[in-house]
């Protein structure tokens, strides 16, 4: 065990068992998977991406490139979980990735021996020919060998949430700068959200030994957090990573809600994806320590110096017994001091600087470099080059510090570029990189605790002032203010073995040199050529090192070389979280018709119509194919009476002094002449002269109409009317509002429809009181209802509307009564057959490129008045024989099949595009005629009735000889309608 007997921010009273690669270990509450593994002497935790090199834990944070594991059991597995951020819990089951058959013996480690073949650009150059081999041979093999975690292929059953939050000030990061910023702003009365990706707020204060106000840093942090938690205007969001900065002060953030919980209640989400809208933001996201590239710098046991401090101080887990340190700055010496204080043996501090000012009770090799390491599955020995020659040092843990990179990522999400600061040898955010955002603390290059505390206060005060709030008094806590002392040192020259930059994508210094040699010299080109920084860690520990090498090679400075673009997300976000509640029924809201319950009781097979669900057909016992149900329903309507819920059609109540004038202008035909109590079919054109929608409008009073629209175009028509009333003719006194949902409406169609209504209504329905295309109020017991004598089936038919609360009751009443006549409900399929037999159009025909003349309604564009689209409809090319016109088709050859979307050709012509004569829009089997029928658009179709035409469906390979006929197959005189 490498667990220190005391210390650490752990709850030692809670021992937690967990498993890694099948072995069970014990950790404490407060441990991450990484710290618990280190405490259990597990150092080899992963195999690398390309070469399957043994890898250990490099960092203690979300920037971790190596220690990716998969969490979960069975097919519910989350891959690529960073062991450094995953908290352990009872029953946690973690496994290493990308190894076969096991982590200790990985067969694909042979790739490592073949490494000369796998350097940057290898695939591009090698697997080019033969072309077919790429997809079938090379790619599958490479994909199996390379990679990180794998998905099970099963759907993710976990529950994710999406949520919104709003605040005056979002503080990102809860280190000294973030805590002081939040505290100061909250005291000033701002509504503050403090978000941090860690489970424990406090940032580096939880990892360092330097104190604040005479207390341990973590104690001060905990006390400050407690103060904040008690303030009603502060919201603390731990385990929440702000992943992206977007326009208008909007930030994406991922909260890990139950990844760390053994017995999460079923309804709790795994993660919540937040959109936080903040008036102002203070970024206090800290900095990330960067490595130094040296030969064989990727062995388990080589880690960041700051990570070693985190493991020792926060987790009481000792990463090694004989620790060496490789640094180019004073910060590396902190690790030595902390370890020495704990009595850990320091094998040596190797400092690249010749003039090292710091010293301690441990050997310091100044002006020295680590040039090689040994130990396949764990570091055993390092080779150091000093002025006096090479020297081997026995060590099992090498702590590396190459300086700190401020976390500038978020500040670059709106396309700002960071600025180089020579004194700290690092990029810092540009000023005003994100509107409304200030940057404080280490994220801005203020590395001492004192500077961070002060920057947090200053940023909060600036924010208060900017928002017009009163300033607050604050006392700055006392803390260390060590100046930064660093001499840039990026990589060790010479030496044998590869020096790794990007551990996650297996990119070495040699790969960068190769990119340069092959002229991929822009950092963006270099990134793509080598894949550096393209893995899930997005190169947090490798970017700067790589571009420093490129700068060397090109003879440019680092700022001249520049960085690649940082884009959201800051750290990986599961698709499940982004798509929370979007799967299955969550994809779109469902709208239910008043007779929905009855329809489902009757085995209605539901189909979507926009967001609505309508029955397609009602399956009766013995019916095995939808056509049987459909044919029966059609015959039923033609013979007796059928009922159909037509509530989904848009209904718009139009009132006002100028209501009639308004309708005259939006409909192509005349409505001001319509008598009260009468209904008229109306055609609406778009401004470009094409048909927008059709429907009926009923006149209920001098200044009162009810317009109906098709189900599909209800929203479009409403939008159009609003535009017309608000923009085109604001002078008209007209008011309109949707009443689609107010009324449950049912079609009652068939020769027995009047008999049914007579029995239902209190007064008999006569042909005199309710002739074809009339409307009026009727009473059903205590209820006032509306009756419209209109028909979409060609039959004697009505539509009855009752307030929606009675919809369910009426649907059941109509069922009983229709069945007493041998009738019943019919669905959308039967409705379609009925209208096709009668020659009515739907949006299958008026699909947006069709004029009134095309569907034979040219004369409905009244010449007595102006209306929307009228002038456009009169342009040349909008009507006439050159256009495709609506006709009917019937099969006349041996093949009877008609297919929607099939194209039409003259008999004898080759079935190619240039000979195209038109296409079929709708088709059905007509039980009335005993054969299929169709509606089609045919060039100059109306003049060609009686001609033969050939239907060719190139996709389904069907050819049918047809005769062009009138689209009206049933009762062309309309006697049934008026009967």
């Amino acid at each position, binding site marked *: 065990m490498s667990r220190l007997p005391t210390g650490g921010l752990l709850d030692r009273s809670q021992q937690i068992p967990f498993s890694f690669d099948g072995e069970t270990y014990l950790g404490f509450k407060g441990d991450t998977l990484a710290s618990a593994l280190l405490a259990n002497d597990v150092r080899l935790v992963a195999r690398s991406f390309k070469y399957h090199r043994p890898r250990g834990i490099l960092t203690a944070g979300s920037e971790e490139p190596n220690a990716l594991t998969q969490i979960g059991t069975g097919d519910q597995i989350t891959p690529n979980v960073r062991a450094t951020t995953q908290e352990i819990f009872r029953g946690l089951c973690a496994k290493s990735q990308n190894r076969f058959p096991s982590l200790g013996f990985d067969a694909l480690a042979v790739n490592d021996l073949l490494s000369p073949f796998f350097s940057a650009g290898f695939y591009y150059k090698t697997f080019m020919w033969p072309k077919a081999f790429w997809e079938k041979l090379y790619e599958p093999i490479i994909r199996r060998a390379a990679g990180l975690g794998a998905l099970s292929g099963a759907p993710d059953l976990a*529950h994710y*949430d999406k*949520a*919104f*939050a*709003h605040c005056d000030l979002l503080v990102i990061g809860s280190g000294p700068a973030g805590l002081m910023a939040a505290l100061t702003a909250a005291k000033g009365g701002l*509504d503050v959200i403090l978000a941090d990706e860690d489970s424990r707020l406090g940032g580096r204060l939880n990892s360092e030994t330097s104190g604040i106000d005479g207390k341990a840093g973590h104690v001060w942090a905990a006390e400050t957090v407690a103060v904040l*938690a008690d303030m009603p205007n502060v919201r*603390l*969001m*731990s385990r929440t990573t702000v992943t992206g900065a977007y326009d208008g002060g909007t930030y994406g953030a991922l909260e890990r809600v139950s990844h760390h919980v053994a017995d*999460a*209640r*079923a*309804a*709790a*989400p795994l993660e919540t994806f937040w*959109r936080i*809208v903040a008036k102002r933001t203070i970024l206090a996201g800290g900095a990330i320590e960067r490595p130094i590239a040296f030969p064989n710098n990727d062995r388990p046991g080589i880690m960041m110096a700051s990570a070693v401090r985190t493991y020792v101080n926060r987790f009481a887990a000792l990463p090694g017994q004989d620790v060496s340190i490789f640094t180019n700055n004073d910060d590396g010496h902190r690790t030595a001091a902390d370890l020495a204080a704990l009595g850990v043996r320091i094998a040596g501090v190797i400092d690249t600087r010749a003039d090292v000012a710091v010293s301690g009770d441990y050997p310091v090799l100044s002006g020295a470099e680590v040039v090689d390491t040994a130990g396949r599955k764990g570091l055993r020995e390092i080779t150091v080059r000093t002025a006096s020659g090479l020297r081997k040092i026995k060590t099992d843990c090498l702590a590396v510090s190459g300086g700190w990179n401020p976390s500038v990522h978020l500040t670059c999400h709106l396309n700002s570029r960071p600025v180089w600061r020579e004194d700290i040898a690092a990029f810092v955010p540009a000023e005003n990189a994100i509107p409304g955002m200030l940057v404080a603390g280490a994220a801005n290059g203020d590395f001492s605790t004192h500077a961070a505390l002060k920057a947090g206060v200053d940023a909060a005060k600036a924010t208060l002032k900017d928002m017009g709030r009163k300033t607050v008094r604050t006392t700055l806590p006392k803390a260390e203010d060590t100046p930064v002392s660093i001499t840039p040192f990026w990589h060790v020259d010479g030496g044998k073995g590869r020096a790794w930059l990007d551990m996650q994508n297996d990119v070495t210094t040699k790969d960068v040199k190769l990119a340069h040699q092959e002229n991929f010299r822009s950092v963006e080109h270099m990134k793509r050529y080598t894949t550096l920084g393209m893995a899930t860690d997005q190169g947090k520990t490798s970017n700067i090192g790589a571009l420093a090498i490129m700068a060397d090679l090109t003879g440019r400075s680092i700022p001249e070389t520049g960085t690649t673009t940082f884009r959201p997300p800051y750290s990986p976000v599961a698709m499940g979280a982004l798509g929370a*509640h979007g799967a299955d*029924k*969550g994809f*779109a*809201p*469902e*709208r*239910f*018709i008043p007779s929905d319950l009855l329809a489902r009781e009757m085995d209605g097979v539901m189909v979507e119509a926009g967001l*609505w669900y309508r029955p397609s057909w009602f399956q009766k016992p013995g019916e095995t194919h939808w056509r049987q149900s459909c044919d029966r329903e059609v015959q039923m309507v033609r013979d007796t009476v059928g009922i159909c819920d037509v*509530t989904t059609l848009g209904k718009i*109540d139009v*009132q*006002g*002094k100028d209501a009639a004038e308004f309708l005259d202008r939006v409909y192509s035909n005349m409505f001001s002449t319509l008598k009260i109590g009468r209904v008229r079919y109306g055609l609406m054109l778009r401004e470009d002269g094409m048909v927008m929608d059709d429907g009926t409008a009923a006149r209920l009073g001098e200044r009162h109409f009810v317009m109906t629209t098709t189900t599909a175009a209800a929203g479009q028509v409403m939008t159009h009317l609003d535009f017309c009333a*608000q923009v085109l003719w604001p002078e008209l*006194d007209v*008011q309109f*509002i*949707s*009443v*689609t*949902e*107010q*009324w*449950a409406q049912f079609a009652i169609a068939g020769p027995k429809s009047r008999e049914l209504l007579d029995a*239902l209504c*209190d007064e008999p329905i006569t042909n005199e009181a309710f002739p074809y295309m009339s409307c009026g109020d009727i009473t*059903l*017991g*205590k*209820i006032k209802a509306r009756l419209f004598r209109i028909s979409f089936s060609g039959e004697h038919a009505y539509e009855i509307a*009752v*307030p*929606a*609360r*009675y*919809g*369910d*009751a009426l649907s059941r*009443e109509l069922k009983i009564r229709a069945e007493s006549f041998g009738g019943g409900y019919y669905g959308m399929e039967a409705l379609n057959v009925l209208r096709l037999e009668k020659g009515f159009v739907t949006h299958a025909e008026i699909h947006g490129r069709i004029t009134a003349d095309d569907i034979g309604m040219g004369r409905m564009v009244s010449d007595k008045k102006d209306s929307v689209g009228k002038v456009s409809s009169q342009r040349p090319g909008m009507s006439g024989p050159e256009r495709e016109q609506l006709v009917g088709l019937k099969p006349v050859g041996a093949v009877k099949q008609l297919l929607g979307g099939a194209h039409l050709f003259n008999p004898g012509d080759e079935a190619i595009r240039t000979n195209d004569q038109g296409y079929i829009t709708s088709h059905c089997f007509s039980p009335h005629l005993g054969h299929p029928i169709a509606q089609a658009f045919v060039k100059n179709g109306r003049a060609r009735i009686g001609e033969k035409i050939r239907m060719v469906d190139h996709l389904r390979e069907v050819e049918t000889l047809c005769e062009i006929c009138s689209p009206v197959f049933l009762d062309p005189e309309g006697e049934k309608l008026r009967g």
Partner: protein
Amino acid sequence: MVDLIAKTPLAGILPINAGETVLTEASPASITSVMPHQGREKALGEALKKAHDIGLPAVGRSSGTAALRMIWTGRGQYMLVGNKPAARALARSSTLTDQSDGWAVMQLTGDNAAQVMARLCPLDLRAASFKNGHTARTELAHIMAVVSRIPKGFEIMVMRSFAQTAVTSLQQAMDSVAAQWTRT
């Protein structure tokens, strides 16, 4: 003579609760859309004052009491929700349309109501920004809704056909919030 039985949009579905949060159906006696005639807003305001002692609410506001509230719902559009309004008096300056059956009205109350709404509605509904008497025509789980602040939480109106989907989404959010422990 037929005797049809009335059903409210969420009969048999509400009430539901999760933890402290409760979702109930409010069944106002009447919902009437009120749209002032051209240039007659002032006359409507006076008629409203006289008939019901309610002022015409500004954009994004509602006026009146729990018994009868006038809710702004759009440009030149209000909903009178509650007792039956004095239709004759108001009709001289506005167009009235019965919407009593067109909308489902729900009340979400309890300590975590705001947390539930935060999972469904993108608006800033913090108590300081969305006060009593504030109302918004917005979205709730991708459903067009009218959301108003009421003393103990929120009143949510959605069109009748969307009511079940809205409740499904609200239930999910309520369960999710109830299942999440207090933050540290």
